[in-house]
């Protein structure tokens, strides 16, 4: 595994204690390695030139234009638009689950931190909302709120039961300006509830991306021995004989994923499911693709 890929491996990232460092490392590494990435087709389209001001990233200087004009201009890309970018992070107790080294919550935090960092790098105003069955914390989008957001992500804990409907309904009123919203959750709710909740966010033309984070054990149900299974949110115990219902469970979870993908997609919500064992680059590519598409559409 190359150094760049290593920094995208969630199990490696788990060793990095500082979320800001983690996010910067991941994003810069990701961006620097983009030309070697197997994810072809991703590009940042040139939008316009702006006068170079001291402090700007000299890597954006258009040297060819300088050669022609003897003036320093920096390139502006399509993504370089000032957008309100808010991450809605599900911090319900079910996000605490993890069958390997990384829990869903950790993975979601990495995603949130990295994408927020990436977004800020795109000169977006970043914000954060953490929720479970209610809104826990709101950091309004701002160009200066990256440290706040990272700090809030760091100190968030997944303790309480969650219910996606009420908090998202409230948030529907919160976003007065058209924003880009990234919803990171495990979506343990009925598709109708999710659709209704997400529908509140889609008001006022917000662009919603849904990242469905699941552990591989939730997808494959690899358990052998019959045992009581305890719900992390409700503490309800259910006696389970895994051999007896494994196939049925797998079918159900996949149906749920498919239904969410289909119905959210029909509503114009970009849905993607991420296995916590997958490296983060896939999620980042997905995000960037979405931004690129949005830019074209606008």
């Amino acid at each position, binding site marked *: 595994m190359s150094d760049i890929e290593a920094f995208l491996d969630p199990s490696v990232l788990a060793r990095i204690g500082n979320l800001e460092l983690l996010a910067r490392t991941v994003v810069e590494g990701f961006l620097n390695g983009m030309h070697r990435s197997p994810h072809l087709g991703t590009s940042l389209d040139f939008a316009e030139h702006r006068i170079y001001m001291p402090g700007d990233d000299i890597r954006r200087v258009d040297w060819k234009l300088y050669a022609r004009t003897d003036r320093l201009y920096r390139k502006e890309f399509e993504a370089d638009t000032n957008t309100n970018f808010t991450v809605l992070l599900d911090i319900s107790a079910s996000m605490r689950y993890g069958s390997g080294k990384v829990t869903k919550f950790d993975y979601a935090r990495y995603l949130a931190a990295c994408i927020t960092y990436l977004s800020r790098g795109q000169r977006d105003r970043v914000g954060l909302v953490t929720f479970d069955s209610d809104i826990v914390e709101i950091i309004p989008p701002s160009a200066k709120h990256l440290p706040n957001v990272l700090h809030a992500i760091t100190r968030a804990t997944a303790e309480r039961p969650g219910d996606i409907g009420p908090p998202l309904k409230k948030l529907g009123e919160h976003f007065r300006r058209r924003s880009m919203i990234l919803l990171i959750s495990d979506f343990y709710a009925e598709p109708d509830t999710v659709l209704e909740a997400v529908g509140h966010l889609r008001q006022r033309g917000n662009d919603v991306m849904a990242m469905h984070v699941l552990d591989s054990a939730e997808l494959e149900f690899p358990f052998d021995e019959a*045992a*009581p*299974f*305890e719900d992390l949110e409700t503490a309800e115990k259910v006696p389970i004989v895994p051999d007896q219902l494994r196939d049925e469970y797998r079918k159900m979870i996949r149906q749920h994923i498919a239904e969410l993908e289909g119905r959210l997609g029909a509503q114009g919500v970009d849905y993607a499911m991420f296995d916590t064992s997958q490296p983060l680059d896939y999620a980042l590519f997905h995000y960037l693709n979405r931004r690129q598409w949005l830019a074209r559409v606008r």
Partner: protein
Amino acid sequence: MGFLAPLFLLGVGALSIPILVHLTQKERKEVIQFPSTMFLRRIPYQAVRRQQIRHWLLLLLRCLAILFVILAFTRPFFTSKKGVAATLMKMGKDQVILLDRSYSMGYGNRWERAQKAAKEAVDNLGANDRAVVVYFAGTAWPAGNLTSDKLALRKAIDSVLPTAGATRYDVAFRAVQRVFADTARPSRAVVLISDDQRTGWTGRELPALPAGTSFTAVNLSDTLTANVFVSRVDTKYREDESAKQERVTVKARLANVGLKPILKHRVVLEVGGREMQSKAVDLPANGTAEVEFTELPVPPEITAGAVRSAADSLQRDNVYHFVVARKQPLSVLVIQPVKGDSMAGLFIRRALSIGDHPSFKIKTVQPGQLSASDLKDQGMVVLNNVPMPDDELGRGLEKYVQQGGALLVALGSRSDPARWPSFAKELMPLPTGAPVEQLAEFGATFGFIDRGHPVFEVFNGPRSGDFSAARFYHYWSVTPGPNDRQLARFGDGRPALLERRVGTGRVLVWSSDLDGIWNTMPLQPVFLPFLRQAAAYAVNYKDERLTGTVGQVVTPATLFGDDVPSADSAAVRGMASEVKQYVSLAPDSQQVRFGKAGAPPTLELTQQGIYELKRASGDADKRLLAANVDLAESDLTSFDPALLEVAVAPRPVPASEKSPISAELERQDLERGQAVWWYLLILAFLLLGLENLVANRLSRSAR
């Protein structure tokens, strides 16, 4: 098919256990935390799908394993002919090899042939067969237990020789019964290795062999036999007055059981282990001859002697042992009526004068001539038709008896009750009333004789003494005392002969006379041995010269004249420490000490030759007992072994009379022989192993 324990079949219900386990499985006690049971709750716990059996192979393996374990406990067995035959083959047979060790087996090369046949029987044993060698002659005894060890069996055959005993087939087959009583194998065999001697089967019914026993007889008899043996030795003692020496003449009788006469057959006389004389005798075919050796002086001490015949094909019966001892005559004082009665005491004197052991030295006196000194050193006093003296002499006589003397009283015409002193009743039962007359119907006879008493013991055998011919015309009625023993009674129940113990002496009272006047007893052939026996008993005479036959059991206490209380008497328990013990030195010089406290000590004569017996207390008194072989064994005539096979053939038992115990034994034999339970347990074990493999594979594939 049968089952020894069919109740275990109820355990088939246990087959439901793997099914229950298969359906429910064992639940982990540990709780697994899961993000959400949203989807799990949608799947019903009691869904039919959960109760479906999906791994039929696993279930089958588990059920079969349990079934085989249950069946193993029921102890099944096959009852088909094939199954029974296979069981029998597998179990093997138990075989008894009866090896005749009587002395006739020493004839010619019979013993070598017997050993060879016995070893062949051992070699023919199968791998699962067991055998035991049972020796027999006069008794039978096994050389160990049933075993498959052929080396041990061969050793039991090679390590022995014929004994001095005579053949008895009934004891041999009883020993077979005892051996087979301890074995449960249904397949049995008997191999008899013998010379089929006719004298060994005296017409007694032989025990039948158990059902299913095969019988093989190896006949070692010879078509033609010839044997010479010493059948008898007599010794006659004579007092040589001039040499003041006692001398003995030994006469031997030899028999030739053969078709050819034998001329100048050498016969040797040994005394004290040294050859003294040798004679040559001509023996006719199938005949006998006597040889008389020259008179010899009797050694001062009791000495063993033997007459040996020249060697022939059977050695054991060529020697006859005997004992030579000084006569030690006993003094007998006969007090008889007045001198004018010439018949008085005649028969007594004549009877006691004949014979050597004991020999009696008789002195007769009349009542008026009797003095106190006459009683001194007398072995016995006879009051022949005279009453007891009523003076000091009478008291002296009483004292004599109390101190161990013997008194024989013959009551006759002069024995009126009034003539007896009053103190006489302390010494003996007295006559009462008037003499009983039995003139009608040719007189009275004996009605009862105590043949267990030493006086009459010798007359126990057939044709050994006829008392029935004696006729009694007169006799006294004698009232026995509470401790008197009636040794004989007349037909009317009145005592004819009584015994009373007085002090350490004995008194015998004869109710009629011994002069042939009141009865015809003295005229009977039995009178002489009877009177001698009565006199010998009265004086407690014990012949130092003892003879016996190999196989006979003797009681040394009796030979020494010691009292032997019965084993269960209170006297024994009270004086257990005082019961005498004896030491015997057998002909092979083995010394044996016997006679435990509380039990009469006995000695079985197992060897031919001289036994020396002494009291264990160490006193010098000893006895020599000459043990000779039973000469019936010298008759080598054999019988047809087919007759023996018929005689011991198993008796068929009707099925209705078949003992339920024997039927059960057969079932147990079949089950034990087939051991189906063992194979079932092995199968169950293999199935459980296979189940383990299959379960692991299914578990991995499920993951």
